[in-house]
């Protein structure tokens, strides 16, 4: 057998184990050109989410003097994680040696190094019905966007060097184990618990959102926050970035079917529905409470909806997507506008308020909404039971990410330091760290 990796891993295995195993047990897998074409496309869409989608979404929200620093962080993370993914990341996340369904051992939490340097990968290596090289790339784009999301929480004050060190450590100690625990196939810790996470609500969004909250608490507030005005400098960029996220998310969610099939099609549909519902939910509640519907609000709402539908995209129906979207839009509005102010932490671009909260809402609702009785397409019949399993998945991820992220942030803080000095922060990171300006207008 050429397949060292669990063929039935990935999201599809988690909600349709019967089908996935049936495929694996049937005749030896054959390359499907339709699946391959879609996954090549989906991979590019997910990469587009980080550069330039997320980079512009965040870049527009910071002050003009820090625009380049945010773009640079997202771009550099893309390059750094790519290299780490090839060297050991793919292996640690997806190597399934020593794993067996129902048995919990070290490999339930972390993969081995059997595929380090992509050992054994050839042009004709297959993963399900697509070239394994495409699967390596597809999963790499997820590993890229997750640390890039954290950038929003520590924007406008973190040293670039410290960010690179943080990215390498967090990718290794947090992202890879959590990805393995959810998507590692039979025998993976959270996968075996029965946690439903189609496209990465737990692995990507809760994980990054919690790390963001911890990061902004450890690094401290920006100088002058919250008394000095720090309005977004270019909401046009933010809206363009949000639009690219929306578009790219079809690769993220529909691509997580790892096939051009009905599941991918339904994932695409529910993604669109939840995003629109959340944009409307956020805008409506903002209009009611702040008297003005804002561009930043509708963009934020859309992103909250995209995050929330991510874990549910493979199992919920169109009606469920409406519910997920509306709840995420309204709840995230209060988290980003009220909760942050009440507790006084400076999660600059609301990574916690939008990604962690929407991720948790989505992860919890995924359970009941997977049930056919609520219009879902999963195999869930015990609504409360699945909800409890989802709670365990969320709880574990929150605690794991919080503890490890704290250790990493704190470790960097006491060794090389996390923050730029006061003067650099005042001048802006573009000039202070990169000796460039985002805008040379004259």
């Amino acid at each position, binding site marked *: 057998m050429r397949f060292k990796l669990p063929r039935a891993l990935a999201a599809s295995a988690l909600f349709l184990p019967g089908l996935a195993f049936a495929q694996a047990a049937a005749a030896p897998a054959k390359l499907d050109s339709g699946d391959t074409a879609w996954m090549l496309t989906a991979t590019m869409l997910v990469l587009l989410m980080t550069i330039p989608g997320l980079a512009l979404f965040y870049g527009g929200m910071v002050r003009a003097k820090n625009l380049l620093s945010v773009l640079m962080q997202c771009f550099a993370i893309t390059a750094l994680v790519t290299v780490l993914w090839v060297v050991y990341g793919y292996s640690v996340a997806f190597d399934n040696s020593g794993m067996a369904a129902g048995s919990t051992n070290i490999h339930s939490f972390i993969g081995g190094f059997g595929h380090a340097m992509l050992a054994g990968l050839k042009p004709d290596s297959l993963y399900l019905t697509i070239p394994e090289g495409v699967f390596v790339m597809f999963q790499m784009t997820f590993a890229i966007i997750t640390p890039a999301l954290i950038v929003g929480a520590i924007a406008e004050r973190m040293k670039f060097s410290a960010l690179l060190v943080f990215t390498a450590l967090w990718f290794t100690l947090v992202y890879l184990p959590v990805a393995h625990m959810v998507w590692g196939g039979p025998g993976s810790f959270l996968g075996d618990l029965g946690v439903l996470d189609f496209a990465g609500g737990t692995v990507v969004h809760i994980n990054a959102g919690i790390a963001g909250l911890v990061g902004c608490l450890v690094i401290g507030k920006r100088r002058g926050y*919250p008394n000095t*005005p*720090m*309005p*977004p400098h270019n909401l046009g960029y933010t809206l363009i970035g949000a639009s690219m996220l929306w578009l790219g998310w079809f690769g993220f969610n529909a691509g997580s079917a790892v096939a051009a099939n009905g599941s991918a099609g339904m994932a695409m549909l529910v993604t669109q529905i939840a995003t629109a519902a959340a944009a409307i939910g956020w805008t409506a509640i903002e209009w009611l409470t*702040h008297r*003005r519907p*804002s561009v*930043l*609000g509708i963009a*934020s709402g859309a992103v909250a909806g995209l995050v929330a539908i991510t874990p549910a995209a493979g199992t919920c129906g169109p009606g469920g997507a409406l519910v997920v979207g509306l709840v995420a839009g309204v709840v995230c509005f209060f988290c*980003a*506008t*009220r909760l*942050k*102010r009440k507790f006084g932490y400076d999660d600059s671009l*609301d990574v916690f308020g939008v990604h962690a909260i929407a991720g948790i809402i989505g992860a919890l609702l995924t359970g009941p909404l997977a049930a056919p009785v609520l219009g879902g397409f999963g195999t869930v019949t015990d609504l409360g039971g699945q909800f409890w399993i989802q709670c365990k998945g969320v709880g574990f991820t929150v605690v794991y990410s919080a503890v490890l992220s704290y250790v990493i942030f704190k470790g960097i803080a006491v060794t090389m330091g996390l923050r730029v000095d006061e003067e650099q922060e005042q001048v802006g990171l573009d000039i202070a760290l990169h000796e460039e300006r985002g805008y040379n207008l004259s």
Partner: protein
Amino acid sequence: MKWINAIIKPFTLDDVREALAEVGVQGMTVTEVKGFGRQHGHTELYRGAEYVVDFLPKLKIEIAVTDEQLERAVEAISTAARTGKIGDGKIFVIDLEQAIRIRTQEVDGDAL
């Protein structure tokens, strides 16, 4: 000669320029400025963070006119820049001692 220094709403600039051209004013200097008068600032709200913007963007136009042109020029500005709402701006008139066109060395009225 007089120096007219007028603060106007930015969007009225084209009307003001045309009106001044009609009364024979041949040049002007325009600067983007910020300030406040009776029209106080406004508030902006970003994800619940409220910022009071004290200074509003205006344009400052500066023109030099002869004493004979003054009345018509002031009339032209105050008509073209008026919307009737608060924040239309102000016109200041100052005595101008001397004017020289650098290229030709013409002075005063000939230089305008």
